[in-house]
């Protein structure tokens, strides 16, 4: 019965994530992969963990780059691109959108803008990280 309750809670969480637009269809795809049984049962969790670690690192890198007196915007570009790739792979829609938003600032070479955009990315990432972590806890 506890399992059922947990299951219900997980479903509610997932539904909430979908309705708020935090994750998109790609995340559904991942879930369906897991449910196929073709992959290991912890597939989503594994990808989510990978994503969280990766994104954490990238965000730290970008922050470090932007902390420099002279910002190497090309590097920022590369990092943001990577983060965008990761987030779109995992279906973290809001982080992906934030990365797209980021683009205009490093193209304009505006440090201020980049910092703001980074803040946005970070906040979106925190959101999705919390949700993912909750999700993984519930799944276990």
């Amino acid at each position, binding site marked *: 019965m506890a399992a059922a309750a947990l299951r219900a809670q997980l*479903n*509610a969480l*997932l*539904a909430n994530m*979908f*309705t708020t*637009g935090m994750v*998109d*269809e*790609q995340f*559904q*795809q*991942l*879930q*369906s*992969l897991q*449910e*196929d049984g*073709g*992959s290991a049962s912890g*597939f989503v969790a*594994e*990808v989510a963990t*990978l*994503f969280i670690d*990766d994104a954490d690192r990238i965000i730290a890198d970008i922050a470090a780059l932007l902390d420099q007196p002279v910002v190497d915007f090309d590097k920022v570009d*590369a990092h943001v*691109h*990577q983060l*965008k*790739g*990761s987030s*779109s*792979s*995992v*279906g973290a829609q809001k982080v992906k959108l934030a990365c797209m938003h980021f683009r205009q600032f490093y193209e304009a070479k*505006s440090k*201020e*803008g980049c*910092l*703001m*955009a*980074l*803040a*946005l990315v*970070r*906040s979106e990432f*925190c*959101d999705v990280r919390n949700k993912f972590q909750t999700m993984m806890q519930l799944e276990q």
Partner: protein
Amino acid sequence: TGVTALHRSLRHGALVKAEEGIVCMCEERARMLQDQFAVSVNHVHALAILVATFHYEKQPPALDQDTFADYTARTSFERPLLSGVAYAQRVMHADREAFERQQGWIIKTMKHEPSPPQDEYAPVIYSQETVSYIEGLDMMSGEEDRENILRSRATGKAVLTRPFRLMSNHLGVVLTFPVYLVDLPPDAKVEDRVAATAGYLGGAFDVESLVENLLRQLAGNQELVVNVYDVTNHSNPLVMYGSEVPLGAPSPSHTCTLDFGDPFRNHHMICRYRSEPHVPWSAITTPSGVFVILMLIGYIIYAAWNRYDSVKEDCRKMEALKKRAEAADVAKSQFLATVSHEIRTPMNGVLGMLDMLLDTELKSTQRDFAQTAQICGKALISLINEVLDRAKIEAGKLELESVPFDLRSILDEVVSLFSSKSREKGIELAVYVSERVPEILLGDPGRFRQIITNLVGNSIKFTERGHIFVQVHLADHSNLATEPKVESVANGINGHIDETSVVSTSVPHNTLSGFEAADSRNSWENFKALLSYDTNDMAYGSDSGNVTLVVSVEDTGIGIPIHAQGRVFMPFMQADSSTSRNYGGTGIGLSISKCLVELMSGQINFVSRPNVGSTFTFTAVLQRCERNAINVSKSALLHPLPSSFQGLSTLLVDKRPVRATVTEYHLQRLGIASKSVRTIEQALGVLLGRNGTSLTSMPRKQLSMLLVESDSWGLKMDVPLRTRFLEMKQNGCESVFPQVILLSLADSDKMKAEYAVDSVITKPLKASTLAACLFQSLGISITQANNEKKHHGPDSLYGLLLGKNILVVDDNKVNLRVAAGTLKKYGAKVECVESGKDALERLQVPHKFDLCLMDIQMPEMDGFEATRQIRAIEAKAHEQRDNADNSDAGSTAKKAQWHLPVLAMTADVIQATHEECTKYGMDGYVSKPFEEKQLFKAVQKFLGPSASS
């Protein structure tokens, strides 16, 4: 000068006239004088003849002094101008003594002295009493008199002396006539005449009196000065009449010659005006009048010119001011744009930081403060964005994009944007897009969304109950519904608002939520008509490139007051000042929407009734864009809905047909067949198959869901439903137990607890939410069904990829993992490497891989470079093999070519074109993350049955 010329000419004219006058008068006077004189001369002549008569044949003559004196005295009236006449006898010297004796006196000279002896003498013997003092004086003793006498007797005519002063102190001349003894013929010789001469008759002629009398008789005497001169000696004219000194002024004068009968003497009469001839008045008034007129005309011209000048100057100033104003306007817009941008940038930072702050551990008050700050910040940002938009539109800088987009997903986005708000307020928010609206349209999705977002945002703001309903139809067949129904308008005007509102609450209207709408065109009747068009007329209107959409946003809010309806689209105008207090906002949104709609060559208008609601309707012209015309890469942009629900069918229980249609629309988009009934009872009937029309419309399809609207869910309906299901299962009618899903506005958890249902979908509905929720609730059964489907033949990804060896190259672990997972799902054997170099290691010929998926952007060696090297390796292998072929001739065709299909994996499907990929030796590209259809298409070429054989 003209004036003076005129003046001169006038004066000259007057002068000429005066001259003519003087000539005329002078001639007249001269003639009259001449005549008068002649008359006087004739009298003297007659007297002379009388004296001569007395001398005829008589010696001594029968005449003596007394007789003469008496006669002349008595006839002096005939000669008024002669002061006196006297007769002098010719006495030869030889006769002197005898004469003296006879007379008794001696001849004296003029000086009263005894005359010296002369050849002859002319002593006066008879004289008029008035001149008796000259009796006995020898007239020939005076030089001049002698001359006269000699001349007169030689010619036989009257002779004049030069003028001199008479005794009366008047100027006069002496007239002398000869008296002959015999009657001489007119042609007698001088000698004969001298010989025949008996004596001389003379008289003093008072010329002055003569002229005086004459002039007195004539008119115009006063103004005329008449002078008469004796000009016998030209160099020394002698005055006979008038002032001695001629008037100095060269005033016009005229000179006439006078003939007084003495050919020896010449006389002139000179007439001139007494005074300077005055300038005629006309000579002064006319030019001065002309002058004044000219001055006036000149002034008028001058004034007009001045005015023209000043007007021109004013005009120039206006022009300059206008330019400045325009420049200022442009500057204003630019300023707005710049400032807005400058404010936006730091505001984004503030908002981002607030977001982060809210993620940290906060006390409830702190959280409240931070949230308030965030809300304010967001409001500010949206205001600035709107101002910026407005400025851009005004500056004409706003240009619409033309890119393909999916209208339905745009509307889904709008719905998701407002879903939380509508849920909070408990309002139905629904979207319906007509089937005939093409799936993909060319236009500006951002701006289109902005308009709808704005309208829906307004509606949400002003609506407390009821619904907000967004509909999109094609213009051509929504025409029948564009006329607002008269009855509803009449309701609004006739004042029975209370009544209608009572009606609206008591009797549910046939709208989305049951509340009355301002524009009754969205009632079920109209809606049904539109739907019938949708289904019947599918082929219509596909010929033209333009698609005119009619979008209406209907709400059941407070409506717009009648008096404010006229200025709804004016910027910064709200219905009244209390609006912004109660509801916030700036009122700029609608004016922007209007501009945007006009940019899309559409129109926007609305119908609104206070306390009933508003319906905004706009049209927009977009371009048609056939789905197959867009290349595959772009279609990946458009977030296609999951297709895994194909073939499912549902039964929908909803008492409101409009709402049911909306739900069906969403289900249809997911490929789910649906059937709607009004009540649970009907639903049970359908489930039992009792109803004639029941499941015949969807034959062979499995009923997998029962969707029930929460307000259509009758009390205690769940128990009979359960039992029915159990019955059915036992009867074997249904192999799968249908999921009962509740559609609800309220929070899903509560509802689920309240109603005994399998799952709750929280409205507002949108396809993706529906899909997600259905995934959750139907979960395994569906995916299994999909799996079954996917095992079919080689035309599915599963068939293509099963057992294939695939190398995935990506530096991003997450991507790598996801890609691997996806590919494995389709049965492929996947190997992952994280760099181009590693990939090259694995791909040394010979290798086992059937396909390589390569990320493009990688550190050290990017996808393009890696591919280039792979191709190089392959080329080398070919060379070697060719060499080997030379030695070993029996090579099989299977190993004819090493060419590993390399597909680029890219997120930027827009940037990556097919050309660019093939340039670096790649064979194509797949989107990242994988999109099933696109992956299938890309891979099919290389791994499909034709390729692998």
